């Protein structure tokens, strides 16, 4: 449910969706989108509520490294020459109603 909402929001913002759940071995990127001058890797995190933590807090250091590694593989496989951007889309709620938050450029690749 979360990823569908995220997709429609990204499309609403004028981005083109290239892939859903693109996998490279056991690494996965939820959504790969593209604008005129950037390629955007989106991690979608959905939670029922924020009693314990914000969804974005679930994107840990280890998770970031995995996303960056997968993105690197993606860029090399499809020979993309645009600069990369890493976004997080947070969705809080359930079928009754959900809030959606789009964090652009949520992180940069760490030192490997």
């Amino acid at each position: 449910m979360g990823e569908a909402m995220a997709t429609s929001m990204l499309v609403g913002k004028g981005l083109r969706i290239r892939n859903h759940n693109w996998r490279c071995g056991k690494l996965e990127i939820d959504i790969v989108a593209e604008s005129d001058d950037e390629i955007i890797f989106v991690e979608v995190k959905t939670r029922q509520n924020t009693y314990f933590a914000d969804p974005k807090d679930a994107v840990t250091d280890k998770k970031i490294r995995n996303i960056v590694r997968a993105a690197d593989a993606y860029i090399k496989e499809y020979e993309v020459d645009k600069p990369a951007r890493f976004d997080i889309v947070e969705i809080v709620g359930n079928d009754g109603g959900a809030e959606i938050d789009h964090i652009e450029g949520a992180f940069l690749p760490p030192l490997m």
Partner: protein
Amino acid sequence: MLVKVYAAAVQGIDAMPVTIEVNCSRGCLFHLVGLPDSAVKESHERIKSALSVNGYKFPTKEIIINMSPADVRKEGTAYDLPLAIGILASAEEVSAERLPRFMLMGEISLDGSVLPIKGALPIAILARSEGYEGLIVPEQNAREAAVVNNLQVFGVRNIREVISFLNGEAELEPTVVDTRAEFYARQASFDLDFAEVKGQESVKRALEVAAAGGHNVIMVGAPGSGKSMMAKRLPSILPPLSLGESLETTKIHSVAGKLPRGTSLIAQRPFRSPHHTISQVAMVGGGTYPAPGEISLAHNGVLFLDELPEFNRAVLEVLRQPLEDRHISIARAKCSLDYPASFMLVASMNPCPCGYYNHPTKQCVCTPGQVQKYLNRISGPLLDRIDIQVEIVPVPFEKMADTRQGEPSAAIRERVVAARRVQEERFKGEKGIYCNAQMTLRLMNIHAVPDADGLRLLKNAMQRLNLSARAYDRILRVARTIADLDGSQSIKSSHIAEAISYRNLDRAAWGNS
């Protein structure tokens, strides 16, 4: 695009070139290789923040950075600026055209301002010898680096200035220092002067002799008798630093990061007085990445050890070798470095645990054994390297209330400089020997032979005062300096007599009466 940025690593008191190669290609990983330590690795975070605050984008491409030579460990934060510029240039956000002509160093803070670094002077010397047109350093280090001529030194405050300079959008103003004029202007002004010392003529004279011959001194006296006060004024009567000496001393202070902001050359001899709780490493230098210690910071100046017996014995023993060799080599598993350490040792101590042994008015409460034990805390070999031992007695009230000024330092300094000139002439042909204190036995047999009267007096004194053989050649050395101050070719009995008076601790009677 592959870009090269030129930086430097400081090793010992010299710098060596470091080339930072940055390659940007398709991908999004970030690699930093070439043996960076953790402070260099952290620079990634600082650069990210500094660029975003200043409105530049950190490129998300595959960035591979190599710091070559890759086998030398790169430490410290001074690589932030060259790394940041390299990353931007490689992503073609900054023009790489001017880069090969400049060397750059600097630490970056999160808002992009450039913070001071250590070792700017040796880096500037390297930049000139490697033939770079200019050096870009933090503004606080610009004057220090500008001492080097034939090199344009640019002091910068913010990474934006560097970027617009490299893009050719704005020019930087080179820092110019008239080194000589400034150096000579600041050489004669001292905060402290011997004219402020009331009485104590004999101790002043002893310090004058010590300064003239480069002898090490120990002052023994009751608490509050003015030992530290006089030691602090010693640099004001030492011969002025030459430009060459100053450059060496400034280099050491630059590497240690101990130069005050905006200093160019150190114009006055350093005076270092470490507290007696100092550790061995702090004294001679060392650490995982060796840094200069107190003895190197005192290079060409004075190392003052207050309350000598309170120092850890091991700390005092490590002084022995540098006192002879005038440099210290620090060997660690990772590297071995050499720092110069040519200093004059000035020490002070109480005569006994209670402090009043031999005091004119107060009674000492120590037993002879205690006095002896206190003195024994200083090892023979170290005491052996101290030519002048002088007792210092508290100034009586009449003298203290006297408003007349003593002899000013400038007058004493003139006599010292004249005596040093005689010694320079004498040791012209000898390598590494500049003053009487450094005379070898061979030279003493030529230059320090007393006349017949003097010899008779010396013989008498040796027997009467029970002086040791060790004291014998110390006396001759000091007598040579006294004769030089006197302008006399031969060593006369009056010179010998004065020299004998500087061997207080050698008398076998010390502590037994």
